[in-house]
C-alpha cells in the first residue's frame, strides 16, 4: 500500500456537501419550532428610553416578544475569554439584549419569536424603540482623544487595556545610524463566511437539558461560556456544530444571538431557530483587523536592522468579543520582528473601544498585522539606506543554524530554513531579469513592480501553560479518541472542530497511515459535545497540528494494545512483533501474521486476551503541545500599474510555504489559495467603512468588494519541508499562511512599481482611484 500521508485524497466531506446533503444549522427542522428575529439599534450610540412591544405582540403568529429588561436578571453578560496579562484590562459588560444603552449600530434590543421567520421579521419592524441618540466615535485614535464620547461610561479614555511587551529599545534608537518611522492603517475587514451564523435551541423539559445547534468553530468553548451565561450546567448542555460553512475567525466568539435563542427555548419550551441575514452578518458578526500602527525601525547604514518599536491602537469595537483582546496583543505584539534576527524589539498596544461592531480574530488574527508592518518596514528601510530590499532581507533573515531561535519577546521559533524557502522562490522568479525589464518598461511609461514577503508566523495554538501565561481563559491542548470496532473499522472523535478545511479527510489519512487501513474504513466525528469528551476547537491553524497530533497519540495506544493481542495470539513476546501496513508479524518469520482486523475482533470477543487486559480496542489521548509551530516562507508578487486609471494588475504570484510535513497536498494547496485571496483582498479590494455617526457604509456586497476568482492569476505554489521538531507528525499548520504573507507582498510590489513617482506608501485597500490620485498629486505620468 502506498503512503496515505502525502497523497492528494479527494475530500470525503465533499460527497455530502456538493450534493446539498450537508447538515448546517439552518437545515435543522424540529416539530413545533418557532423563529426568532432580532430588533437592532439603528444608532451607533444611544440611550434606550422606552421599548413598546404591544403592536408586535398583536401580530397573528407572534409567540413572544422579549426585551433587554426581560433577560437582564436571568442571563449573564456575554463574556470575554482572553485577558492579556499586566494590561489592566477592563471588562465591557455586554448584555445579550441591551437595556440601557446601545453601543453600535446593530446592537440588539429585543427579540420577536413567531411561527414563521417572515412573521417574526414583520413583527420586529413593529417594535417601537425610543432612542435618545448620542455622539459616536469610530476611529481608534479619535476614541483616545480628550472629550471623545465614551463607549462604556466607566472606562476612561475608551482604553480597554494597555499592553506592553519587550524591553526598552530607546537607547538603540538614540544611537542608531538610520531610523525609519512610518504609520500604517490596517483597515477593517468583514470576514464574510459563505454561511451566515445561525442557532437552533431545544429544551428538553423531561431531562432539563438544552441542545443548541450553532455555527461555531469551538463547540466546547461555546458550551462552557453559555453554561455560565444561562445557568445551565455543562452536563445538561449540548452544543452541536456538524457542518459549518466557513468562519475565518468570525465563529469563535460567543454571540448574544445564540444565548437569546437558548434562553427563549427554555422559557417557551419550544425549539427556537434564528438565522442571520447577510445584512446582519455585515453589521453584527465580528469584524477583523482595524489598527493604527506607529512603527519605527533602527538600523545601520549598511542594511543591518537593529531594533523595531511598535505602538498600535487596536479598534476592538463596542464590546470585547470572546478572543478579541488576545489578537492585537499576544498574536501580534510578540512577533513584530518577523523572520528577522532583529535583536531589540518592543511593542505597545492600546485596546480601544469605539461605537462599531466588535472586532475579533480574522484569518491570521494578529499575525497578518505584524507581518505587514515588518515586511513593509523592511522595504522602507531598504529605500532609506539605498539598498535592494532583497539584499536587506538576505542580511537580516534568521540563519538556518540559529534554530531553535529565541526572538526578542522570548518566543522560541521551533525550526526553519528561511534562506531555503527564499532560494526556492528565486528559482521560480528571475529577479535580475525582472529588474532589467522593469527599467526598460519604465522608459516606455509602463510601471511594473515586485514585492517580497519573507514571513514567519506562529501556529498550532498552543501549549496550555502558555495559554494560561498569556491570559487565554482556556486550555489549548486537544483530545482524540480512536475507537476501533470489532470489524476493524474505526471512528475517530476529535475535539478540533473543522468547518470547511477538510480534516475529516486529513485525519482519516493519519489514521489510515498509522493503522494501515483503507481511508474509507475511517469516519471522523467532530462538532458535538455529546460525542466528544472535550476539545478546544479550530482556529489559529491548530487543527492538524494539535488535533492531528492527538490522533497520532491515540493511534499509538491502539497499536500498543493490538500488538499485545497479536503477540498473545502468535505466542511470542510483544517485542518480537512487528507492525507494518496493518499486519502484525513475528520478526524474522514474516509468514506468521495477525491482521489488525483480527486483533480488533479478538479484543472485542475477549475469549482469549493476555492476562489482565481489559476488552475492547480504543485509544484516547489528550495532546498538550510543547510549543507553537512556526510556518514560514517567501511570497513574491509581481504587478503592473496602469497610470491612466490606477488599475493594478497582478501578473504573477509565487508562494513558497514551509508548513512542515504535508499530509494532503491538495488540501494544503486549497488552504493557501484561500488565504492568498483573503490577504490580497485586504491589499487591493476590501475595507469596511463607517461614517461619523457610526453607520456602516459598506454593509453589503454591492459596496464591500469581496474578491472574485477572476481577479487573480494562477497562483504558483511550492514548498520546502522543515518538519516541526516537537510535533509528532512534523506538521506546522497551513490555515493562515496565505492571508498572513500575501498582503505586504502585494503592497510592496505596488510601491515598487510606483517608486518612479516618488510614492512610498498608500493606505489599503489600494483602489485604482487612490493610486491614480497619488500619481496625479505627484504630477502625473512622465
Amino acid at each position, binding site marked *: 500500500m502506498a503512503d496515505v500521508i502525502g497523497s492528494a485524497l479527494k475530500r470525503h466531506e465533499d460527497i455530502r456537501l456538493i450534493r446539498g446533503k450537508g447538515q448546517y444549522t439552518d437545515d435543522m427542522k424540529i416539530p413545533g419550532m418557532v423563529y426568532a428575529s432580532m430588533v437592532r439599534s439603528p444608532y451607533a450610540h444611544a440611550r434606550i428610553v422606552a421599548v413598546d412591544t404591544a403592536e408586535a405582540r398583536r401580530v397573528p403568529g407572534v409567540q413572544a416578544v422579549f426585551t433587554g429588561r426581560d433577560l437582564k436578571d436571568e442571563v449573564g453578560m456575554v463574556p470575554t475569554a482572553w485577558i492579556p496579562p499586566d494590561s489592566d484590562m477592563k471588562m465591557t459588560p455586554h448584555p445579550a439584549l441591551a437595556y440601557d444603552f446601545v453601543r453600535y449600530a446593530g446592537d440588539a434590543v429585543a427579540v420577536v419569536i413567531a411561527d414563521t*421567520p*417572515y412573521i417574526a*421579521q*414583520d413583527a420586529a*419592524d413593529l417594535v417601537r424603540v425610543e432612542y435618545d441618540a448620542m455622539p459616536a466615535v469610530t476611529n481608534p485614535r479619535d476614541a483616545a482623544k480628550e472629550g471623545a464620547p465614551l463607549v462604556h461610561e466607566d472606562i476612561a479614555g475608551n482604553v480597554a487595556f494597555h499592553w506592553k511587551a519587550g524591553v526598552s529599545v530607546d537607547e538603540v534608537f538614540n544611537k542608531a545610524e538610520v531610523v525609519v518611522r512610518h504609520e500604517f492603517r490596517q483597515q477593517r475587514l468583514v470576514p464574510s463566511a459563505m454561511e451566515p451564523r445561525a442557532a437552533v435551541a431545544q429544551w428538553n423539559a423531561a431531562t432539563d437539558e438544552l441542545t443548541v445547534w450553532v455555527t461555531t468553530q469551538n463547540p466546547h468553548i461555546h458550551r462552557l461560556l453559555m453554561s455560565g451565561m444561562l445557568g445551565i450546567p455543562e452536563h445538561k448542555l449540548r452544543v452541536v456544530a456538524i457542518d459549518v460553512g466557513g468562519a475565518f475567525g468570525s465563529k469563535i466568539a460567543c454571540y448574544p444571538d445564540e444565548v437569546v435563542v437558548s434562553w427563549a427555548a427554555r422559557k417557551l419550551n419550544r425549539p427556537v431557530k434564528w438565522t442571520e*441575514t447577510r*445584512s446582519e452578518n455585515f453589521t453584527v458578526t465580528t469584524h477583523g483587523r482595524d489598527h493604527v500602527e506607529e512603527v519605527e525601525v533602527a538600523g545601520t547604514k549598511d542594511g543591518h536592522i537593529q531594533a523595531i518599536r511598535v505602538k498600535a491602537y487596536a479598534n476592538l469595537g463596542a464590546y470585547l468579543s470572546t478572543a478579541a483582546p488576545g489578537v492585537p496583543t499576544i498574536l501580534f505584539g510578540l512577533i513584530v520582528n518577523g523572520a528577522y534576527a532583529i535583536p531589540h524589539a518592543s511593542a505597545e498596544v492600546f485596546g480601544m473601544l469605539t461605537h462599531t461592531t466588535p472586532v475579533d480574530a480574522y484569518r491570521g488574527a494578529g499575525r497578518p498585522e505584524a507581518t505587514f508592518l515588518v515586511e513593509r518596514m523592511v522595504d522602507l528601510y531598504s529605500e532609506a539606506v539605498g539598498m535592494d530590499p532583497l539584499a536587506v532581507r538576505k542580511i537580516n533573515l534568521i540563519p538556518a543554524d540559529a534554530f531553535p531561535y529565541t526572538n526578542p519577546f522570548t518566543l522560541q521559533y521551533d525550526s526553519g530554513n528561511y534562506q531555503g524557502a527564499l532560494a526556492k522562490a528565486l528559482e521560480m522568479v528571475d529577479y535580475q531579469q525582472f529588474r532589467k525589464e522593469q527599467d526598460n518598461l519604465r522608459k516606455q511609461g509602463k510601471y511594473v513592480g515586485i514585492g517580497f514577503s519573507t514571513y514567519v508566523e506562529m501556529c498550532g495554538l498552543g501549549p496550555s501553560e502558555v495559554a494560561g501565561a498569556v491570559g487565554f481563559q482556556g486550555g489549548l491542548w486537544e483530545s482524540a479518541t480512536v475507537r476501533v470496532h470489532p470489524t476493524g473499522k474505526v471512528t475517530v472523535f476529535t475535539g478540533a472542530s473543522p468547518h470547511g478545511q477538510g480534516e475529516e479527510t486529513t485525519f482519516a489519512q493519519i489514521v489510515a497511515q498509522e493503522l494501515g487501513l483503507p481511508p474509507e474504513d475511517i469516519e471522523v466525528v467532530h462538532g458535538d459535545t455529546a460525542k466528544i469528551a472535550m476539545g478546544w476547537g479550530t482556529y489559529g491553524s491548530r487543527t492538524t497540528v494539535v488535533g492531528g497530533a492527538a490522533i497520532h497519540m491515540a493511534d499509538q495506544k491502539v497499536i500498543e494494545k493490538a500488538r499485545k493481542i497479536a503477540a498473545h495470539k502468535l505466542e511470542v513476546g510483544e517485542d518480537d512483533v512487528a507492525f507494518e501496513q496493518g499486519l502484525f508479524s513475528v520478526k524474522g518469520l514474516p509468514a506468521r501474521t495477525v491482521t489488525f482486523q483480527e486483533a480488533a475482533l479478538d479484543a472485542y470477543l475477549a475469549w482469549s486476551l493476555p492476562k489482565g487486559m481489559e476488552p475492547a480496542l480504543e485509544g484516547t489521548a489528550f495532546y498538550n503541545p510543547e510549543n507553537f509551530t512556526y510556518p514560514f516562507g517567501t511570497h513574491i508578487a509581481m504587478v503592473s500599474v496602469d497610470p*491612466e*486609471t490606477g488599475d493594478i494588475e497582478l501578473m504573477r504570484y509565487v508562494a513558497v510555504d514551509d508548513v512542515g510535513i504535508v499530509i494532503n497536498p491538495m488540501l494544503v494547496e486549497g488552504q493557501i489559495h484561500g488565504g492568498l485571496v483573503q490577504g490580497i483582498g485586504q491589499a487591493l*479590494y476590501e475595507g469596511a467603512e463607517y461614517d461619523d455617526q457610526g453607520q456602516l457604509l459598506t454593509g453589503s*456586497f*454591492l*459596496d*464591500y*468588494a*469581496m*474578491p*472574485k476568482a477572476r*481577479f487573480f492569476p494562477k497562483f504558483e505554489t511550492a514548498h520546502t519541508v522543515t518538519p516541526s521538531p516537537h510535533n509528532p507528525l512534523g506538521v506546522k499548520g497551513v490555515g493562515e499562511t496565505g492571508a498572513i504573507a500575501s498582503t505586504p507582498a502585494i503592497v510592496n510590489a505596488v510601491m515598487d512599481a510606483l517608486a518612479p513617482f516618488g510614492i512610498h506608501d498608500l493606505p489599503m485597500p489600494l483602489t485604482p*482611484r487612490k493610486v*491614480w*490620485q497619488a500619481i*496625479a498629486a505627484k504630477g502625473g505620468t512622465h
Partner: protein
Amino acid sequence: MYTAPFDYRRAHDTQEVVTWLQEDPDNTKIIAGGHSLLPLMKLRLASVARLVDISQVAELQGIREDMGGLRIGAFTRHAQLAKDPAVREAAPLLASAAAVIGDMQVRNRGTIGGSLCHADPAADLPAALLALNAELVIAGPGTERRESLDAFFLAPFITTLAADEVLTAIVVPRMVPGAKSTYLKRPHPASGYPVIGVAAWVSVSGGRVEDCRIALTGIGPVPFRAARSEQVLTGRAFSREAIAEAAREAAGSGTLEDDEDGYKSQLCQVYVSRALGDIAQGAG
C-alpha cells in the same frame, strides 16, 4: 432579509397589466425578472402591496424584424439578447452589452424592460440602446405611445414612465451596414455594475468617419450620449489624433457624479479612447 407581505397576480395580456396597475398605481409594481425589484423589497427599501407578474404575457416576449430594425419584447431576458442571431446580426452592440451584465444567473432572469424601467444609473443596456437610437413602445390606460430613449431617463431611478404604464417593446434600428461597434465595461469590484460603460459604433467610409454614436453609463446620474465626441469624430479621418480629441470631449457631454478629484472625467477620457481604439483596430 425577507420582503414584507404582498399580494401577487400573474397577468396574461398587456391590458390586464394596465388594468391592475390602474386599480392602485402607487402600491402596485410590475415584476419582470425581479432582479432589481426583489432586492429592494428584501431590504425593505421598496414597499409594494401587489406584484403583477408579466412573465406570461406573450405580447411582451420575442424578438422580431420591424421596419428594417428589431422589435424586442420588454420581457426579453439578457441571456436571450446576448445569443439571439437576429440581435447579433442587426445590433451586435446590444448583444455584447447584454453578454456582460452581472453573471449568468442574473442574465438568465433579468429583462431588457426591467433594466430600462428600473433606470439604475449604472445599468449596462441603456448605453448600448442610446447608442443604437432605440425607441420605446409604452402602453397606458387606453393609449400607446412611443418615446425616444434619449428622453426617457430623468434622474437616477426615475423615468417618464407613469405608474400605470407598461413598457411593451424596444424598437432598435438596424446598425449601419459595415459599422463596427464595441461595449467596453469597467466593472465595479464589488457589485459588478459598470463604474463606466462605453457603447460606441463607428462607420468609416473612404477613410473618414461617416457616422458614429457613443453613449456612456455608470458615470453620471443618467446615462448620456457623448454628443461632443461624436461631433469631433464625424467627417474626420478615424485617426489616433481624432480619437484622442474625441475622448477629451466625452466628459463634457454629460453630467458626471462624484468627480471632485477629476477621476471620473479621466475614466471618461480613457474609456472612450480605448473603446474607439478597439473599434479602429477591429476596423483595421
